[in-house]
């Protein structure tokens, strides 16, 4: 994978906790689930593999994950405190 990852913009410093594939992560308030996945600290060491994504606006459907047991496009869902997010590599791509 190319790139150096992502960083938050206009970060208020406030944090919420979400679980990504069973591991708790701290993410800035006001992010989408896609942003949380792309920014998670564990991306760098390979513990979190962010979904493939292209459009960021709900069209391409490549970034679908399971959020609190329901499937949704990660890019269309705001991250909320306590979210349980499951990435699934064998879902479409």
């Amino acid at each position: 994978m190319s790139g150096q990852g992502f960083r938050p913009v206009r970060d208020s410093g406030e944090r919420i906790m979400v679980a990504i594939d069973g591991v708790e992560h701290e993410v800035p308030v006001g992010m989408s689930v896609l942003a949380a996945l792309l920014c998670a600290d564990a991306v760098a060491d390979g513990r979190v593999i962010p979904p493939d994504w292209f459009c960021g606006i709900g069209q391409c459907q490549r970034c679908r994950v399971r959020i609190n047991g329901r499937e949704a496009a990660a890019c269309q869902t705001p991250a909320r405190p306590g979210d349980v997010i499951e990435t699934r590599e064998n879902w479409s791509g």
Partner: protein
Amino acid sequence: MAHVDAVVVGSGIIGSFVALALHERGLRVMVVDRAGLAPGTSRSSDGNLLCSDKSPGLMLELSHRSLQAWHRFAERYGNHCEFDPKGSTVVARSPTEAEGLAELVRAQQADGIDCRFLESGWEALEPHLGPDTVAVGHWPGDAQVQPMLACYQIARHLREAGVEYRFYQAIEQLEPTDDRVVVTLAGGETVTAGHVCLCTGIWTNEVLKPLGLSVPIEPRKGHIAVLERGDVAVNSKIADFGYQAAAESTEIDGTAVQTAAIIEATRSGTILCGSSREFAGFDMTVNMETVQRLLADCVGVVPDLARLRVIRAYAGLRPFSRDGLPVIGPLPGAERVIVATGHEGAGHGLAAITGEIVAETLAEGITHPYGGRLHPERFL
């Protein structure tokens, strides 16, 4: 004016195999379709090549022979259509169903069909059947195909061999005479043909209407829901025990919608879920309630399907014939017009043998195979 031995109307699975069989016997063929490739029933079907849903009798015999012809096709031309003899599995979920299934297996075995009845140990065949499974029947020789790719494979082969295809050309007029048929296409082109083969499924009567002729074919609507690829293995074609009765039923009830489960995984990993049967004219709109019902049937057989996602749903129209048998042969009143329709939900399975039957009629003069039981004159 172009002249050919046969104009095949319809580029669906029946027209494709008819054109191929005629071409193989050295006849000059032109294929005409009102829209693109196989725009009708073939496009909205799963690709069942099954014996498991047939009671012993002529349909079973035809299906068995046609499966052998499909194997010959794949050997001769290569397999570019996901033809896959993956077998089929019928699931009984009550002692009564298990009894009926055991009886079907016994009767088919007596007819020489390779099949067996399992009261245990089916997990190796199908690991995701529900806990209420009582017994399964297994038909190792049954197969599936991707119908559109089969039509495409044949079209590309025939085109390379010089056969002309005319897409987006409805039949404007058919003028049968004693020794030929003059065919006028919507674009204005006129072709003369020794014979015209109408492989036009439920639209056959539309083409025949100006001639004052008809065949007793009714559109029988069905729905398919497509599930996205996921982690639920479906190894063979899986049907519930009720599927056979639904597929063979010949009662026309104006309002009833029958549903029964039939499940297949495609090469791309998607899972097709059927089925529904109803008479709703030519209406092809998707009814969400029917989709819900057939999905409930499928989840009843394979509960793990519930966690997969539905990505599409569509409806199609099967060419239903009144006595449950296809209608293949020269049309009384216009002997140079050959019809090949009425295969209901078994068109893909029977396509290969249908091509053979039509080709034998045209090339060898065999007009009443199978004791005339397929001939359109049986309805007179």
